C-alpha cells in the first residue's frame, strides 16, 4: 500500500459497492488523486454490501430506479460478475394479480422483457414450488444475481491501474473539516488529507459521517431478516450458486433464492426494526459483522410458515437446517428513494441508501454529476436536497422508514398517502378546512386539502359520475370534478400556502436571476414572469414564477414538492461577493388562489383597489388592501380561469380566508382542493408539472415551453436550449384523449402503437403517460405523453396499456395549446 496521502482531489468514504463504483467512474472521467478509505478490511469491510442477497430485479414503477438498475446490470455484466437466472414475482391474491398487470405495464413502458405466466408455468421453471397457492407469476428473464464484492474489487483495480486511486482500508474517519461551508480536510486515524470533495458512501453509517461535517443524510439503518436453509439435494446437485429463477413471494412480502445448496429466504414482512447508526457494533465487537445483527427468530416465524406453503417440498425435511440467520442492516429513507447529490455542505456529496441493484449505476451518476454538473440519468426523485428541514429529523426519518419498510414489496397506489408523522406543516387556513371536511393530502409535510366533503352535494347537482373500479377510485373522489365544475361555473378558493417562496434581493439580484432563468427577468416592476430553469445540459431543473417587486427585489414562487430542491439550487448559485440575499420566506407567507368567472367580483368586494383588467392586467402583481390586510395579488392562473393568487403574511391568513369566503358566498364560491388545481384544471389546460412532464431528459422545446425569444443574457443551459430550438424536436409533449372507457389510467402507463408496439423516440426515450386526469369540462379523461414526431400528429390513434388491458387513445393536441379554452380568453377576461 502506498503511503497515506496528505492531499487528494476527492476522498470517497466507504468501500462497499457504491464507493467502489464512485472511484471507478471518477477515475474514468479523469479525476486523479482519488482516495478511497474504509474503516473495515477489504474486500468486505463489513457494511451491507457484504451480506446482501445480491439479486437484481430490473422492473420498478419508477423510471429513475429502473434506469439506475439497468445501468448497474450492464456494468456488473461487463465486469463478468452477473449470472442471469430469471425471476418470478408470484401472486397469491387477486389484488396482487392486478399489481402484476401493472408491473407488466411498467416493464413495457421501460422496455424490459417480461411476461405474465400461469401457476403451471411457474412450477415448470421452479419445479420444487407448490403452484396450488399461486394465482399468477410475473416472469422476468433478465433477473440476475451479482457479485458486488468482486465487482468492487475489479473497479478498484481499474481505477488503480489508471493511476488515479489510492486505497486505504482499516482507516477511520475522525473528522471532516469545513471552512465557509466548504469541505477542506478529512481527518483520519492515519493522518489528515486536504481535499475539496468528499463522497459519503457509507451506507448505514452515512448519517454519522455526514454529521462530522454538519450535513444531514436522512436515513436510518433498519433490519431485513434473512435465513439460509439447507442442504437441499435438488439445489446442491446443480453444482451452481444459482440455477433456478428467484422467487419473490409478493403477498407475504418475501423472497426465496437458491444460494448453492441452500435456499435463502428473506423478508420485508416483519415489524420494522430500526437502529441508530451510533448503535451499530464495531467490527471487533460484532459477532458476525457490524451489519449482521443477531437474528430475532420471533419476528421471522410467520415467514417460515409462508415459505413452507410455497416450498414445503424441499424445506420440510429433517436434514434441511437453518444454517444461517441474520438481522441484516440496510438503509431506509423517508420516501424509499436513494440519497444522492451534494449535501448542504459544499463539496460533501451523498451516495447513500442504495441497493446492490443500483450501486454501479449510482457510482456513474455521482461521478458524472460531480464532473459535468448533471448526470445522464435524471436524479430528481433521489436528490438528497429534496427534503424540508423537518423531514431531515430523526423522528421523521424513523416514522416514515418504519411505515415504508413493509411497503418494500407492497402494492402502492400512485396517490397513496403516508399516515405517519402527519400534520407537520399546516397553513393558517387549516381550521376552516378541517371544519369543511377537507381530505388532506401531504406534500413536503404540508397538509393540503385534496377535496372538501362539504362540496359533496355538488356531485349530484352537477351530475358527476363516480369511478366504478376501486383501484381507479382509490385516493380519489368525484367531489374533485364537482369542485372543478363549480369553479368554472362561478369561482373557487384554493389553499396554495404550500408553495415554496424565496425572497431575492440586493444589487446583484437581477443578474443572479438572469443567470438561472430562461425568461427575461429584466422586466418592469410588478411583472409576473413564468420561467423554465434549466440544468447545464438544457434539461429541466425546475420551472417557477418570478415576481419583480422592485429594482433589486424579486419573489420566486415554486411548487411545494420541489421547494427544497429548488432552494438548494438557488443557494448553490449565489454569487460569492454577497451582492444577493436569498431568503426562504415559505413559512412567512400564505397563499389563497381565487379563480373563476366571478373572481373579480369577489376581489372587488373586499378591496378598494382597482382590480379591473385595465388597472390590473394579466401577468402583473400589485399590493392590494383587504381591509387592513396587505395582500400581494398576482394575476395569473394554473387553472385557466380569471383570478389571482393572494399572498399575505401567515398571521393574516385566517382573516383573508374569512373575507374571501364571505364575499364569495353570494357569487357561489366553493373551496376547491388540489385535485382541481394539480390535476383536473391543469390537465384541461395542458399545463406541465415538474417531476412529471418536466424532467432533466426534456427541455423547453420538447415540452412546448420554449419562449418566443432567447434573451441576450447568458443563463444556465443556454447553449443546449439554443441548439434545441434550431432543429426539429425528437419528441413533442402531447395531450391524449381516452376514447370511451370506464377505466382511468393514472400515470406511468406505456403508450403503444395501434398494433401494440412500444413507442420510443430517436434517442430511445419511451412514450408513457406523464400525467393523467379527468377533464370534467371536456367530459373525458386526458393524458400527457411525449411522442416522437411521427406519432405527434393530432388525430392519430394509439393505445394505452392499463392493468393488463389496452385502450384506444387519440392525440388530441400536439404541443402546448390547451384543449380547454385554447385562446385563454377566460383567464384574460
Amino acid at each position, binding site marked *: 500500500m502506498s503511503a497515506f496521502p496528505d492531499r487528494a482531489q476527492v476522498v470517497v468514504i466507504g468501500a462497499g459497492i457504491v464507493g467502489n463504483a464512485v472511484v471507478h467512474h471518477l477515475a474514468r472521467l479523469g479525476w486523479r488523486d482519488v482516495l478511497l478509505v474504509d474503516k473495515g478490511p477489504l474486500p468486505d469491510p463489513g457494511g451491507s454490501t457484504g451480506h446482501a442477497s445480491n439479486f437484481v430485479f430490473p422492473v420498478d414503477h419508477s423510471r429513475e430506479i429502473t434506469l439506475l438498475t439497468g445501468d448497474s446490470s450492464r456494468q456488473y455484466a461487463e465486469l463478468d460478475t452477473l449470472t442471469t437466472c430469471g425471476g418470478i414475482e408470484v401472486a397469491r391474491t387477486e389484488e396482487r394479480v392486478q399489481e402484476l398487470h401493472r408491473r407488466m405495464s411498467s416493464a413495457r413502458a421501460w422496455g424490459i422483457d417480461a411476461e405474465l405466466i400461469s401457476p403451471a408455468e411457474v412450477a415448470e421453471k421452479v419445479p420444487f414450488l407448490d403452484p396450488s397457492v399461486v394465482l399468477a407469476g410475473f416472469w422476468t428473464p433478465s433477473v440476475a444475481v451479482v457479485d458486488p464484492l468482486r465487482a468492487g474489487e475489479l473497479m478498484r483495480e481499474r481505477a488503480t491501474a489508471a493511476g488515479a486511486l489510492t486505497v486505504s482500508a482499516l482507516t477511520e474517519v475522525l473528522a471532516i473539516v469545513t471552512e465557509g461551508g466548504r469541505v477542506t480536510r478529512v481527518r483520519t486515524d492515519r493522518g489528515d488529507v486536504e481535499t475539496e470533495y468528499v463522497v459519503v458512501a457509507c451506507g448505514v453509517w452515512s448519517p454519522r459521517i455526514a454529521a462530522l461535517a454538519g450535513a444531514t443524510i436522512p436515513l436510518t439503518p433498519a433490519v431485513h431478516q434473512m435465513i439460509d436453509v439447507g442442504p437441499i439435494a435438488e439445489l446442491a446437485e446443480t453444482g451452481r450458486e444459482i440455477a433456478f429463477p428467484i422467487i419473490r413471494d409478493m403477498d407475504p412480502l418475501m423472497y426465496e433464492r437458491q444460494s448453492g445448496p441452500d435456499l435463502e429466504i428473506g423478508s420485508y414482512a416483519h415489524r420494522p426494526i430500526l437502529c441508530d447508526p451510533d448503535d451499530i457494533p464495531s467490527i471487533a465487537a460484532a459477532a458476525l459483522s457490524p451489519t449482521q445483527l443477531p437474528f430475532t427468530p*420471533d419476528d421471522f416465524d410467520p415467514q*417460515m410458515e409462508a415459505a413452507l406453503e410455497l416450498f414445503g417440498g424441499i424445506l420440510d*425435511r429433517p436434514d434441511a*437446517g*437453518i444454517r444461517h440467520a441474520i438481522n441484516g442492516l440496510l438503509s431506509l429513507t423517508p420516501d424509499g428513494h436513494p440519497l444522492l447529490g451534494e449535501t448542504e455542505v459544499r463539496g460533501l456529496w451523498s451516495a447513500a441508501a442504495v441497493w446492490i441493484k443500483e450501486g454501479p449505476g449510482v457510482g456513474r451518476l455521482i461521478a458524472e454529476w460531480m464532473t459535468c454538473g448533471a448526470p445522464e440519468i435524471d436524479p430528481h426523485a433521489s436528490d438528497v436536497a429534496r427534503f424540508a428541514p423537518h423531514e431531515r429529523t430523526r423522528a421523521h426519518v424513523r416514522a416514515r422508514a418504519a411505515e415504508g419498510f413493509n411497503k418494500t414489496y407492497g402494492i402502492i397506489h400512485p396517490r397513496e398517502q403516508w399516515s405517519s408523522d402527519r400534520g407537520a406543516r399546516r397553513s393558517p387556513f387549516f381550521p376552516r378546512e378541517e371544519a369543511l371536511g377537507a381530505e388532506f393530502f401531504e406534500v413536503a409535510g404540508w397538509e393540503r386539502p385534496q377535496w372538501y366533503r362539504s362540496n359533496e352535494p355538488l356531485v349530484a347537482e352537477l351530475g358527476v359520475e363516480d369511478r366504478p373500479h376501486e383501484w381507479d377510485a382509490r385516493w380519489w373522489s368525484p367531489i374533485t370534478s364537482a369542485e372543478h365544475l363549480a369553479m368554472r361555473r362561478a369561482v373557487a378558493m384554493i389553499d396554495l400556502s404550500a408553495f415554496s417562496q424565496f425572497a431575492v434581493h440586493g444589487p446583484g439580484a437581477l443578474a443572479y436571476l438572469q443567470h438561472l432563468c430562461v425568461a427575461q427577468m429584466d422586466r418592469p416592476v410588478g411583472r409576473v414572469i413564468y420561467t423554465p430553469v434549466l440544468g447545464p445540459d438544457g434539461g429541466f431543473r425546475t420551472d417557477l414564477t418570478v415576481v419583480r417587486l422592485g429594482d433589486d427585489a424579486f419573489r420566486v414562487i415554486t411548487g411545494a414538492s420541489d421547494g427544497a430542491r429548488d432552494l438548494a439550487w438557488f443557494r448553490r448559485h449565489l454569487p460569492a461577493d454577497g451582492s444577493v440575499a436569498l431568503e426562504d420566506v415559505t413559512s412567512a407567507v400564505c397563499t389563497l388562489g381565487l379563480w373563476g368567472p366571478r373572481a373579480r367580483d369577489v376581489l372587488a368586494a373586499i378591496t378598494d383597489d382597482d382590480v379591473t383588467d385595465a388597472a390590473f392586467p394579466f401577468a402583473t402583481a400589485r399590493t392590494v388592501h383587504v381591509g387592513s390586510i396587505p395582500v400581494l395579488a398576482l394575476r395569473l392562473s394554473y387553472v385557466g380561469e380569471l383570478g389571482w393568487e393572494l399572498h399575505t403574511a401567515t398571521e393574516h391568513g385566517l382573516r383573508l380566508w374569512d373575507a374571501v369566503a364571505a364575499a364569495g358566498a353570494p357569487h357561489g364560491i366553493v373551496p376547491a382542493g388540489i385535485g382541481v388545481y394539480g390535476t383536473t384544471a391543469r390537465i384541461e389546460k395542458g399545463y406541465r408539472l415538474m417531476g412529471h412532464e418536466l424532467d432533466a431528459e426534456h427541455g423547453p422545446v420538447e415540452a412546448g415551453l420554449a419562449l418566443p425569444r432567447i434573451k441576450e443574457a447568458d443563463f444556465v443551459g443556454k447553449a443546449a436550449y439554443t441548439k434545441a430550438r434550431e432543429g426539429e424536436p425528437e419528441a413533442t409533449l402531447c395531450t391524449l384523449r381516452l376514447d370511451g372507457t370506464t377505466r382511468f389510467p393514472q400515470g406511468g402507463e406505456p403508450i403503444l402503437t395501434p398494433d401494440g408496439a412500444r413507442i420510443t423516440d430517436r434517442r430511445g426515450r419511451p412514450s408513457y403517460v406523464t400525467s393523467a386526469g379527468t377533464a370534467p369540462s371536456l367530459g373525458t379523461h386526458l393524458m400527457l405523453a411525449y411522442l416522437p414526431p411521427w406519432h405527434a400528429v393530432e388525430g392519430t390513434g394509439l393505445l394505452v396499456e392499463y392493468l393488463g388491458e389496452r385502450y384506444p387513445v387519440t392525440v388530441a393536441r400536439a404541443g402546448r395549446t390547451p384543449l380547454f379554452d385554447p385562446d385563454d380568453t377566460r383567464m384574460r377576461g
Partner: protein
Amino acid sequence: MPTTMDVLVCIKRVPAVGAEIALTADATAIDTRHLGFTIGPHEECAVEEAVRLAERTGGRAGVLTVGPPATEEQLRYALSMGADHAVRVDAPVADPEPEVTAAAIAGALGELPPYDLVLFGEASADAGHAQVGFRVACALRRPVVGGVKGIEVGDGRVSLRREAGGGVEVHDAPLPAVAAVLEGLNLPRYPTIKGRLRAKKAPVRVLAGPAATSGLRTRRLRHRPEARAETVLLGQGAGAAPAVVDVLAELGVVR
C-alpha cells in the same frame, strides 16, 4: 438395545459476543445491549446427544434452564433442534452464582419426572465456572463425569468416555447419572423450519426458582492484556509458495 432413555440437558443463556467484548460501566458484567444470545458450543452438543439418545431409545429429551422469561428463547432453540419438552426455573437473572443455579436445578429435578441422564455443558460460555453439573450430581448423590466426549448406554448403565493425560478414560456408571460434555462429542444439527415452528408453540413448564443467594459476587471483569495476532505476509504470487509449504509442513498438514 438399551432401555428407553429420558435425558435432560441443562443449558444457559449467554451473550453471543464478537472478538471484542464490551463491559458495562461498572465492569461487573458484559454489556449486552447490542448483543444476541445463544447457548455455548458444549451445550449444543449436549442437546444434540440428548435428542439422538431419545430418538434411538424411544425416550424423551428435555431441556432446562434457570433464568427470567427471556431465557425461553434458548429453550425454544433447543426445542427446534429436536428436544421435546422444556422447563424454566424462574430466576431474576440467567446467571445466578453456580451454587444457587445448582440448588435450583436439583430442586427442580425433585419436582420433575425422573431422568436417566442429566447432561451439562462442560462449562458455560461466559462465566466458565464448570461447577453446576458437579454440584447437582452431589446434591442428588448420583455419579458424575466431566469432560465427556463419548456416551454409550447399555441396560441400566452408561459408559462415559473422556480424554485425559494423552489417553482415554472410560467410566461406567449406573443410571441415573450426570455428565458434563465437551464440544466435539458430536456434530450438532441445525434447527429445521418445522422444528422452529413447533418450538414456537411448545409449552414451557415454569417452576418457582431459588430465593437464596450464596453471597458470591462478581467484583470486576478485566480484559486480557491485548495479545495482538500478528499477520505475517509470506510473500506474493508464486514466490510465496515455498513459504506456504513450510508453514503447512510445520502444521503437519503435509509431510
